[in-house]
């Protein structure tokens, strides 16, 4: 049982931060699913909205990236 409390806290914190990545995955799936639902109702309008789809995915993903960043910082920088 080597290591100390601070290191344990680091690892637990990094693991908790990884939950945020999973939450971002839900968000990205929500964006893509709603896009598909809309696109199937009006396929002729779908082609023009792919850029919007990717922008939406990118913004939803950004917050997951921040939790990933927190995990990385806890693992390697603190």
């Amino acid at each position, binding site marked *: 049982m080597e290591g100390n409390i601070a290191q344990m806290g680091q690892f637990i914190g990094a693991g908790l931060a990884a939950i945020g990545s999973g939450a971002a995955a839900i968000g990205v799936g929500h964006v893509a699913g709603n896009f598909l639902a809309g696109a199937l109702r009006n396929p002729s309008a779908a082609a023009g909205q792919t*850029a919007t789809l*990717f*922008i939406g*995915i*990118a913004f939803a*993903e*950004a917050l997951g*990236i*921040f939790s*990933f*960043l927190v995990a990385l910082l806890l693992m390697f920088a603190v």
Partner: protein
Amino acid sequence: MAEEAKGGGLEFHPMDQFIIKPLFGDVGDSVGMFTVTNATFWMALAILAIAALMILGTRGRAVVPTRTQSVAELAYGFVYKMVEDVAGKDGLKYFPYIMTLFLFILFSNFLGLIPMSFTTTSHIAVTAILAMAVFLAVTILGFVKNGASFLGLFWVSSAPLALRPILALIELISYFVRPVSHSIRLAGNMMAGHAVLKVFAGFAQVAAVAPIAIFGVVAIYGLEVLVSAIQAYVFTILTCVYLKDALHPSH
């Protein structure tokens, strides 16, 4: 990192592929600012590949394009239409820069998929420079084009007056966080994907799970090809969005 490798029983560590080594001389040599490393080599290779595609593709200028010319025209038209659609007609002046960004990231990502190669875009140092360049260029451009009215980007005039200072603060934070998310999105996606490939390759050493692991490596490799293209596209389209914000800051 090192003690994890011993404990995990892997013969290689999944993150070993991202180590920067000097190209000439011994592995232990120190890496300075001007040392030629494997990162330099693969970046140079990406530039050479782009130059080869574009020079060979535009040399013939045939009415019925050859295969190389078709690829070059496809890449050009794809980015041109993206800039026109997202940033608007007056964003087309900055098309060469966005085209450069797109092709460099796309080629770096794809060259990184070659086995035993080095993914330059998996390093935050590379993507942070790209994202900071975009951020600084867009901010300077916004102030040059619009003067002080560029600050209207943060003042949401459609919101109730009482809410506007709070929204301005949120908009300000989200503006300065842009280069962070812009760079880490690309680096994180590339790094995580390649590390997963190596982890599955490590499972292939165990005879019991080797068939599943090899199938997994193939499947994830296919996914990585997709992710490489999508991340290059996302980086470029976000650059276009930021450019549009700089050219037309009103909400």
